[in-house]
């Protein structure tokens, strides 16, 4: 069966041949998507790609490190507006993106400091307060947010003879692949295990030599970096940002994606991103039902399938692997 005999084997990305075939098919399908899919589907795939980055970041913080945070929208806004200003000053896309992520990470460390003293509910409140405060600062400071008209962001230049939308799709696909690989490596390294140890028993982790200060701040920095990049990429897609976009509901959307996709799972983060993009699209005529679906989604996940969509996939896979036995 599926016996792991060495650490090297445990780290392998796709262990069984069939998994490799499926993964190759998935990648080929994603690369070929613009050739057979209509443009609006390519656009949706672009959105899923950029949301996956943010959800992965939040999953590192909430799922792996166990720090409940509701400041997601604040980091999205910081990333988006940094990116917007840097682009307007004439920086190229990759530099502006890195700058957005870096500033978000820096602020993330500042927000992380309370987490050294606060636990559980208190941290949730502190980050919720920070999220709302940042939102109000952006709304009230016109120099930062570009006032009522917001910031306009130049579109990516088409490359390699592709259309602008397809160029954007490929750039985002590349980025999300890179982030996924980095995250995989992160969670299976010492750092990832330190995060999980902090979540499961922080005192025991400290006794075993995990530097709590360093790794909690690192978790905040990494997750804010991801979320800042998400904000920047979102700004690029929208082409125009104003602070009203980054409200509490946006924080909750990322939170729902983490929970529904699967807490502490990378595949789950991508599934969660797919969920929060697909639900509003499928219910385009019944927008008011979207929060109900989100709410029911997290309630049902918590009560019946704590690992979320990814847990569901694991069970399905196990069922077929063991078929016809149960």
């Amino acid at each position: 069966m599926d016996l792991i005999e060495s650490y090297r084997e445990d780290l392998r990305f796709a262990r069984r041949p069939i998994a490799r075939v499926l993964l190759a098919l998935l990648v080929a399908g994603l690369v070929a998507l613009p050739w057979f899919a209509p443009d609006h589907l390519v656009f949706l795939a672009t959105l899923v790609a950029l949301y996956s980055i943010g959800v992965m970041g939040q999953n590192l913080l909430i799922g792996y490190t166990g720090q409940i945070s509701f400041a997601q929208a604040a980091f999205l806004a910081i990333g988006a507006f940094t990116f917007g200003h840097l682009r307007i000053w004439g920086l190229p896309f990759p530099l502006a993106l890195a700058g957005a992520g870096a500033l978000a990470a820096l602020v993330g460390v500042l927000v992380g400091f309370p987490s050294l003293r606060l636990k559980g509910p208190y941290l949730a409140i502190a980050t919720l307060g920070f999220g709302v405060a940042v939102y109000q600062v952006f709304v009230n400071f016109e120099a930062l947010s570009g006032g009522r008209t917001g910031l306009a962001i130049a579109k990516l230049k088409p490359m390699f003879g592709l259309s602008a939308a397809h160029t954007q799709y490929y750039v985002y696909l590349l980025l999300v692949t890179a982030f996924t690989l980095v995250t995989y490596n992160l969670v299976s390294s010492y750092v990832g295990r330190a995060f999980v140890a902090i979540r499961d028993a922080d005192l025991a982790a400290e006794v075993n030599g995990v530097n709590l200060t360093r790794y909690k701040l690192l978790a905040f920095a990494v997750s804010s970096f991801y979320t800042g990049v998400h904000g920047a990429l979102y700004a690029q897609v929208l082409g125009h940002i104003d602070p009203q976009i980054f409200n509490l509901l946006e924080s909750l959307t990322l939170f729902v994606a983490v929970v529904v996709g699967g807490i502490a799972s990378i595949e789950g983060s991508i599934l969660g991103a797919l969920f929060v993009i697909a639900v509003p699209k499928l219910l385009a005529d019944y927008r008011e039902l979207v929060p109900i679906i989100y709410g029911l989604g997290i309630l049902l996940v918590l009560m019946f399938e704590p690992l979320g969509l990814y847990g569901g996939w694991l069970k399905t896979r196990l069922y077929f692997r063991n078929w016809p036995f149960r």
Partner: protein
Amino acid sequence: MTSFFQYVFTGLSAGSLYMLVALGIVLIYRSTRVLNFAHGDIATVATFVAFSALSHKYSFLAAFGASLAVGAAVGVAFYLSVLARAQREGANLLGMVILTLGLALIIQGVVIWYWGADPVSLPFPISDTRTYTVGGVVISQLSLASLGAGILGSLLLYLLVQKTRLGLAMRATSENLMAAQTLGIPTRLVLSVSWGAASALGVVAGIFLAPALLLDPFFMLDPFLKGFAAAVLGGLNSLPGAVVGALVLGVAESLTGGYLAIHFKNTLAFGIIIVVLLVRPEGLLGKEFKERV
């Protein structure tokens, strides 16, 4: 000096409504160790029920009663059907946060679906344009009524918790659940009373806030966060703390708005949360929070 008293009075009247919200949050946190993120949304849906009743020409008192009943019923139903079950199965903190957020999202969706997202105004018998002037301080009927509602609400809660047998059971249950069960206190019932009372307090705040703000599906979000801030300021475990915290927050906010900058009036609350949590996490009047990481 007159303007100073004016700001203090405005702050007290706003603070008394934050107080009702904060008392509800503290009551629920003390008894079930849950931060109820759906507190504001329960009040929202109940206020919309009052709106519907008033537009069907029911009297104001009937509408008020109906919305109190709906708010309390939602709180009790959520506790009994979802939360009690999850707690019996040993849900962790993240799980309970997820549950109340789920309820909040569902209620938001229901309100938008049934009443629409456009702001409406609640016909209210007490106007905020009729005013009295006392020594230069302008006092509107509405602010006087909110102050009265805040005082009455917290007084009733005080009598319930401190002077009745049920209140004794509530205190025992929040002190030590296991011991209370052993002594034969029907804890499930007592805790659902806590949820019902807390939700009803939130609804009162919602009804009195509605004429000043317009009624839309998110109108309770801001007061809810302020109530949260007040509860943290006073100490999440302490009912008197919630009263003190809310009044201090209301006055501080009003003075900031008057003397410093109106833009930062709303941000102040969240600054206070962060500072209090860093300096004195147990709040002004709270005890018990000894655990440091």
